[in-house]
């Protein structure tokens, strides 16, 4: 079964819930190498999106993602705002006004989202940012899709790779964002944005799985 606007909306609502549950955990990650607001930023941003979704009117996955993008940009407050905002905006552009998302389109919108984060933040893999979750996620998604996986399976592959990528940020030294102020002392802590990216992609896989 291909993914629809209904799934896209369910995904964003699930993000809001999951990020609320992980609010404190993300704050603690950000306290260690940042300014202790990533959990708050993400919770507020997605809550604002949910409030807009409640008003209805988004007919395509692309429209849901565009609304998500625009709202995150104005409500998150931290670096995650323009970064996730750009990710969802590029995903929306990649999907256009398609009503359904097949496995290739899943890889397409994930790739566009990742490229958006790179364009906005200019981080490279290994800089200890959310890119270190998104890049393996995009690669795993591509591999799964080439092997004939379903849309749900592609998202599951992406989510697993993102979580592994987030864990793998722990030994890294930050070279972008606030954590880079800490230099070598940023090593030994997981990047909060990489972790929230993994949670968001897991929510994508979970909601897609439930709709099947």
């Amino acid at each position, binding site marked *: 079964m291909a993914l629809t606007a209904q799934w896209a909306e369910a995904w964003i609502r699930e993000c809001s819930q999951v990020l609320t549950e992980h609010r404190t955990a993300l704050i603690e990650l950000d306290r260690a190498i940042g*300014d202790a*607001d990533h959990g*708050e*930023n993400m919770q*507020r941003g997605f809550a604002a999106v949910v409030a807009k979704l409640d008003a209805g009117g988004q007919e395509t996955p692309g429209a849901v993602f565009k609304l998500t993008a*625009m709202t995150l*940009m*104005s*409500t*998150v*407050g*931290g*670096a995650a*705002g*323009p*970064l996730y*905002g*750009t990710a969802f905006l590029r995903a929306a552009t990649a999907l256009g006004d398609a009503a359904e998302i097949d496995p290739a389109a899943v890889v397409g919108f994930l790739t566009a989202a990742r490229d958006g984060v790179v364009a*906005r*933040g200019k981080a490279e893999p290994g800089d200890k940012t959310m890119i270190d979750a998104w890049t393996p996620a995009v690669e795993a998604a591509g591999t799964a899709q080439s092997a004939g996986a379903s849309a749900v399976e592609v998202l599951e592959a992406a989510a697993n790779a993102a979580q592994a990528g987030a864990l793998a940020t722990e030994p890294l030294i930050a070279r*972008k*964002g*606030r954590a880079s102020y800490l230099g070598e002392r940023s090593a030994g802590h997981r990047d909060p944005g990489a972790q929230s990216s993994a949670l968001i992609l897991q929510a994508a896989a979970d909601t897609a799985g439930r709709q099947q």
Partner: protein
Amino acid sequence: MTVGLVIVSHSSKIAEGVIELAAQMAPNVRIAAAGGTSDSPSRIGTSLEKVQSALEEAEQGDGVVVLTDLGSAVMTAEMTLEFLPPDTRSRIRLPQAALVEGAVAAAVQAESGGTVDEVASAAERAVVSI
């Protein structure tokens, strides 16, 4: 008319303070604040919406120079520019400058009728205080 300035800071106090400081030497320059988030009470952070309305406030036709504090303010500002029509955007500069020092230097340059490029480069040259 002069080039306008927008001060994007994570802290609304910093944005307001920079404006009072820069305005002393440049009473005729329009300087607009985009400080803190747009929810109320405003948190420490930046907001696309606030940058958008500050740009509208500062622009009088001769262009705007945007000054930012931390990296995420730069990203918010860059994103805001992407939503502008090309001709508006072509009159906006986002120099790599120290916020307070750059804003004062830029304001003085704007006050004396500098172009948007001259104002931006005055900001970039003001790395530490005079």
